């Protein structure tokens, strides 16, 4: 009988406490997802409105597509930047699982890099051409969006495969050249759909929030945007419930049971459900009025909170999956205190610098997006 091969952990101790890495991972990963949702969900929104806006009876769609066009490359830039940070911290804690699963799908995993470049250049191209409203620009945007959807699929494959060491050896023997997918995973499809649909939902919440701000300069356009975004948000969130249920049914029973047995996981799950319902109510109530009210902002805030809770839940489920193989508490730790402090100081300094630059921009005569 073959035993399940688990690469042993690194002989060097962890250079910082587990809780710190976990906290950083959860925070940067949440931010990564927010940006990813903006890049992907935003791309889908833009594409839809760009196509719709080609008919003259939908000037607002056209306008929205033009406004989003300039933001998409920036969204993608920060998706990647924050993704790098998440990748860094996840490697510290779960490197031995992540490396193994990445290698198993190595060829596809590496494809992510050229694919991101294609999507990214596509977004830039679109941002330069959107105003002209050409068909080619639309096609380029469509390609970028499809590529991003493909990348998301590769990621979902890897993230599920790293939790399934029992599948590794057979998969490796089938294709040692890295042309594998984790198609044997029952939760693969619901998980993927859950994430893509969630991206549209969250970006819709972001748009509702943006629309509120637009209302200050152009009330009618702003209202149109808020209401449209709210409807899509509500529809996608409804879909998210169904997909979430499918996902829960697709993951192994013992894992799903942690939601009931483990008070922490159950608590996070319960809070998440409450917060998403709250987000939906706030956004719908706020937007459906004749004059949308600031409840929309609160709804947007709640949807980010929901996302954070879902990220935490995902983390707890990962721990449940890996329970037989990992003992994070048992890892040797030797904190590099000085360096950690330096990092935290620089981190604050970096945020301040970025804040300062944004402040400079806000002071500038014209807004950034329009100045390109």
């Amino acid at each position, binding site marked *: 009988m073959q035993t399940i091969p688990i690469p042993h952990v690194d002989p060097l101790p962890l250079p910082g406490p587990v809780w710190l890495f976990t906290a950083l991972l959860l925070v940067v990963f949440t931010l990564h997802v927010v940006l990813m949702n903006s890049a992907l969900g935003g791309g889908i929104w833009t594409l839809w409105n760009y196509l719709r806006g080609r008919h003259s009876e939908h000037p607002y769609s056209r306008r929205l597509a033009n406004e989003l066009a300039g933001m998409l490359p920036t969204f993608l830039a920060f998706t990647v930047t924050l993704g790098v940070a998440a990748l860094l911290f996840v490697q510290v804690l779960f490197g031995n699982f992540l490396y193994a699963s990445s290698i198993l799908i190595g060829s596809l995993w590496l494809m992510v890099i050229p694919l991101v470049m294609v999507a990214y250049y596509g977004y830039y191209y679109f941002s330069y051409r959107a105003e002209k409203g050409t068909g080619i620009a639309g096609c380029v945007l469509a390609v970028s969006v499809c590529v991003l959807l493909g990348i998301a699929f590769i990621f979902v494959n890897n993230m599920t495969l790293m939790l399934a060491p029992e599948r590794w050896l057979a998969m490796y023997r089938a294709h040692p050249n890295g042309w594998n997918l984790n198609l044997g995973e029952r939760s693969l499809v619901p998980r993927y759909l859950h994430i893509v649909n969630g991206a549209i939902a969250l970006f819709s919440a972001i748009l509702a929030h943006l629309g509120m701000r637009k209302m200050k300069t152009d009330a009618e356009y702003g209202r149109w945007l808020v209401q449209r975004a709210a409807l899509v948000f509500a529809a996608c969130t409804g879909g998210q419930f169904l997909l979430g249920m499918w996902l829960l049914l697709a993951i192994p029973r013992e894992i799903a049971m942690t939601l009931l047995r483990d008070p922490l996981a159950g608590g996070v799950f319960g809070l998440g459900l409450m917060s998403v319902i709250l987000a939906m109510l706030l956004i719908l109530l706020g937007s459906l009025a004749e004059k949308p009210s600031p409840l929309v902002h609160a709804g947007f805030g709640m949807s980010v909170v929901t996302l954070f809770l879902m990220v935490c839940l995902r983390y707890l489920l990962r721990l449940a999956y890996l329970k037989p193989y990992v003992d994070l508490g048992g890892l040797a730790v030797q904190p590099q205190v000085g360096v950690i402090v330096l990092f935290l100081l620089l981190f604050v300094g*970096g945020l301040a*610098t970025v804040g300062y630059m944004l402040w400079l921009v806000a002071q*500038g005569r014209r807004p950034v997006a329009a*100045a390109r």
Partner: protein
Amino acid sequence: MNYPHWQLAIPGGMLIALVAVLHVFVSHFAVGGGFFLVVTESIARRRGDGELLSYCRRHSKFFALLTLVFGAISGVGIWFTIGLVSPEATSTLIHTFVWAWAIEWVFFFVEIAAAIIYAKTWDSLDGREHLIIGWIYFVAAWMSLFVINGILTFMLTPGRWIETHNFWDGMFNPTFMPSLVARTAVSFILAGIFGYITLPKVEGREKVARWAAMWMVAGAVVLPLGLMWYFSRLPQFSQFYLNGLIRGVRHAVRGGVGFTLAALAIALICGVWKPRWMRPGVVTALVVCGLGMIGAGEYLREFLRKPWVINQVIYANDIRAAQVEALQAKGVSRTANFLLADDVTSEAYGQNLFHLQCGSCHAAGGYRGMRQRVDGWDADFAADILQHIHMLRGTMPPYAGDAQDRKALGKYLASLNPAWQFQVTDANRLEVGEKVFGARCGHCHTVNGNYRPLRGAFEKATPAQVAEVFPALGDMSSNMPAFNAPADQAAALAAYISHEANRPILHTPIPEQMPTGSNHSQLMRPASPRQEVR
């Protein structure tokens, strides 16, 4: 041994090199080019030079498109690639330097934000504020180079970290400063080279052409100084590689110097002297020279670290130095997690071992292909010489497996070529002898060259006297395989060696010092010298 081995058609190291060269090319431009932009912009603003300012503006758009997308994403590409090819080493680097990377990430974040804002706010910010953004960009970009430079140099010269495991010892290691100087110089050269891509057609053409050339000259003056300093700080075994015995290194050194000088010549002729001549074709040649310079530099940097990926800790094939002994005692099949074949006597298992132990640097064919390098090896000879694999030019890790493993790999290596059959005649005897020498001795010896010359041992010996020595070779040095060639090949070899050793030559060979199995451990592993396998 710990992780599955990703089987590629090319050596894993080569994939890393490909990604790295492209990334280094653009990312160093991202540092130097950022500096170039702010300095040029501030001069333009100070002088009220509209031509120069509009050049900056156009250049900044190109700059952003290249560095933000290709530069940044290819950097992530390196992460992905090293994780796939050398997970063990990546893990150790992460465990040592995760906070350095986190710090680098902060700079990277600021850098990206600043680059986007800089490129977008030419109209909306006033001059002073726009320059502030530019300076923030440059400082952040250079700082991220500063941090990454520490991790990269650590891999070749971990210095005191080996004993202390102290973060700062690893970060500010012996080659940190020289490498930082050299890299900064390179970034200046690249700033100049890429500066020509957006060279104005008419207005300001001469001004910009001369200005960009000055950046290249400045970089090219500092670069050799930085490199000399760098080379002087290298560990001894790396310095040996520079002695010219290894063809790849020879070519890389010449290529690096050649490309840099060519770029400089183009800059002086078509930049300073006749800016009219700086046509798109010439600019392309310049960019190619820049890429060649980076390619050669990266090749050398990687080569000088062989056989290690992290000096003294992990070999290039991702096997930890500390694991080698256990692997030699227990064998791979009882240690590795992911094997493709269960039958340890099969050729398939041998092939699997080849991928695990040699695949990071060799593939069966193609670049540094195994087929042509083991032509003439039979299975027994291959199994024997594997014990001494680290002696062949000193670039390879010791073989990490037991006798059974050597047999299986030997079988696979022998299967790569058809067995040699010769009709030895008087006419072709020397020719055959030369081939046999190449297959059985030439990996470790020359006759009249500087690389372990045999002339001293065989001068004045007749073919028969040479042949008498063969059976004793295996016992003569613990680093030499036993001799088992068929009689006709042995006779031809003896004739060849005797002929060569008695040929008049101009200079007596001076044996060069080489990193070998024994002095590798002296030079590199003070902690626990590896036992010779016998």
